[in-house]
């Protein structure tokens, strides 16, 4: 009914509607671009870690002067380990066992320089160790203790110590072939046994000298006489190391870890903060624009109050009278949806070009969630406005 539109649209305020339109549009673009940006970065972050390989995070308590003076233990109590286990980001948790007796390693024979050193052992279940070796097993009959040392130790020697002392560098394979002796010392003089030791691998993950769990249990049984300490290190497996709650948890509890591994978690925290700020600003803008929308339409309706009453007297139902307002609203909403998606798409294209310059691979197309968010919001705003229109026209009609 063209005449109805002619009558009721006459009373609109162009500035109000334009303001509401632009405001909502700005809010939408900010929100959608924010989400797009967030999804992009998120996908970049998760691409950078191996999806099949969850992160192994070794954590320890921060060392303070209390530990040095022996006033407080540096280990994790059972309760603390249980608490870590209960965290949503922790898929598996294991504590390090350690030797409860003195250990020494030494070499004999002519092939290698003689040395003797005090040593410690730690053990964690095999699934946490990044070295797979057939020799990684303990057989008391055979008496050879397999040992895994950190890759860092070898690097320290090969690239730091050896060149400065004029000593030869040692390749991994050669070091593995070196036989040395390990002396396990029980309580009391002369209560010791010598075993053969063999380095079977180098770990990038664990900074400790590792032996098989069953060996350590056996040896602690046989030689152990130290007071059992709480484990100083705990290893946890997290399928999503970008989860920002990992860092938050560690910081709250005063635990320490190799920070590098949690870089993505830290980045995620910053990203989430920036994005939530952006979303907050967008939400405020959209909220205000929504109010302007609502008020403009209500103003338009109250300006036309006389005409609406008149139309109602002529037999127009308030729903028919609402139609021009609803159509106007839908036109504006459709414009906002279309334009905001277009602008977000253009922004995403810009972002992608820039990201390519940094050799980051992000998609230039909009994520599905963008369309969902835009449509959902538009629907919400429209429904609220339509309800308001119907209520206020109904008030004017019989």
């Amino acid at each position: 009914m063209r005449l109805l539109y002619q009558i009721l649209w006459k009373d609109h305020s162009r500035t109000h509607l334009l303001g509401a339109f632009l405001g909502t549009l700005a809010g939408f673009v900010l929100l959608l671009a924010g989400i797009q940006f967030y999804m992009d970065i998120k996908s970049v972050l998760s691409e950078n870690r191996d999806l099949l390989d969850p992160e192994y995070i070794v954590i320890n308590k921060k060392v303070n002067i209390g530990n040095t003076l022996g006033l407080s233990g540096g280990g994790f109590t059972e309760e603390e380990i249980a608490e870590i286990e209960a965290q949503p980001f922790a898929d598996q948790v294991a504590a390090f066992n350690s030797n409860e007796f003195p250990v020494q390693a030494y070499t004999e024979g002519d092939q290698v320089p003689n040395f003797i050193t005090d040593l410690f052992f730690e053990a964690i279940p095999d699934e946490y160790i990044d070295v797979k070796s057939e020799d990684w097993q303990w057989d008391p009959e055979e008496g050879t203790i397999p040992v895994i040392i950190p890759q860092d130790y070898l690097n320290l020697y090969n690239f730091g110590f050896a060149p400065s002392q004029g000593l030869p560098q040692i390749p991994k394979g050669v070091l593995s072939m070196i036989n040395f002796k390990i002396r396990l010392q029980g309580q009391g003089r002369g209560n010791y046994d010598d075993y053969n030791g063999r380095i079977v691998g180098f770990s990038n993950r664990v900074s400790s000298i590792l032996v098989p769990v069953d060996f350590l249990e056996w040896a602690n049984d046989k030689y152990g006489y130290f007071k059992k300490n709480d484990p100083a290190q705990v290893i946890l497996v997290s399928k999503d190391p970008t989860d920002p709650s990992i860092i938050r948890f560690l910081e709250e509890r005063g635990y320490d870890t190799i920070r590098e591994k949690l870089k993505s978690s830290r980045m995620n925290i910053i990203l989430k903060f920036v994005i939530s700020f952006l979303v907050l600003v967008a939400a405020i803008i959209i909220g205000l624009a929504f109010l302007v929308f609502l008020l403009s339409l209500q103003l338009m309706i109250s300006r036309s109050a006389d005409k609406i009453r008149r139309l109602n007297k002529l037999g127009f139902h308030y729903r028919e009278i609402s139609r021009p307002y609803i159509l106007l609203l839908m036109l504006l909403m459709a414009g906002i949806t279309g334009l905001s998606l277009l602008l977000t798409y253009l922004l995403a294209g810009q972002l992608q070009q820039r990201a390519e310059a940094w050799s980051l691979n992000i998609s230039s197309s909009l994520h599905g969630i963008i369309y969902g968010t835009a449509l959902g919001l538009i629907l919400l705003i429209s429904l609220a406005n339509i309800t308001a229109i119907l209520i206020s026209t109904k008030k004017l009609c019989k």
Partner: protein
Amino acid sequence: MLEQDTSGSEVWEADSILLEQGKSYVVEAPSGRGKTSLLSVIYGIRTDYQGLVFFDDRDLVSLRSKEWSQIRKNRLSFIFQGLELFDDLTALENIRLKNRITTYHTDERIKEMALMLGIDPFLNRKAGILSFGQQQRVAIIRALCQPFDFLLADECFSHMDRDNSLTAYQLIRAECEARNAGLILTSLNETGLPNTDVSLKL
């Protein structure tokens, strides 16, 4: 019963009154006796009365907004004393606004009626610039552009001369008869209009 002095009124003080379809009623009274109120009550615009008003067998109070707009589209038509025209629309558009709801009359018939009432030269002028008498005739034609069982005409000839009034009255009667509809016509004074069935004093 209205909340005002209605003593001696044939309508307000009556125990009950029946308005029948097909008959024409003239309600005569000086100002302030409730002529417009009576029509407004019947048309559902005013609900501040005591007593019961039935349309067919429905209490007016029980009618929903949807039913009211159906009634106003198909069963009751009103020539408002205040005309209720849209000043920004032309005379023809004002008429069409109503006619389009039910497409009761053709454009030719509308122009014929305009010619009859002598306002055909003004059909394409904005209603707001027409004289009140011309506007009254526009409102009359508009009210005729729908089906109805009753036509409520509220002092619809007040600004017309005797000849024009008679012509308009005859047109109204003819249209009512074509629908077998009732007519309730209010007037300030003795109208002297021919062929009215019942005269009510408010």
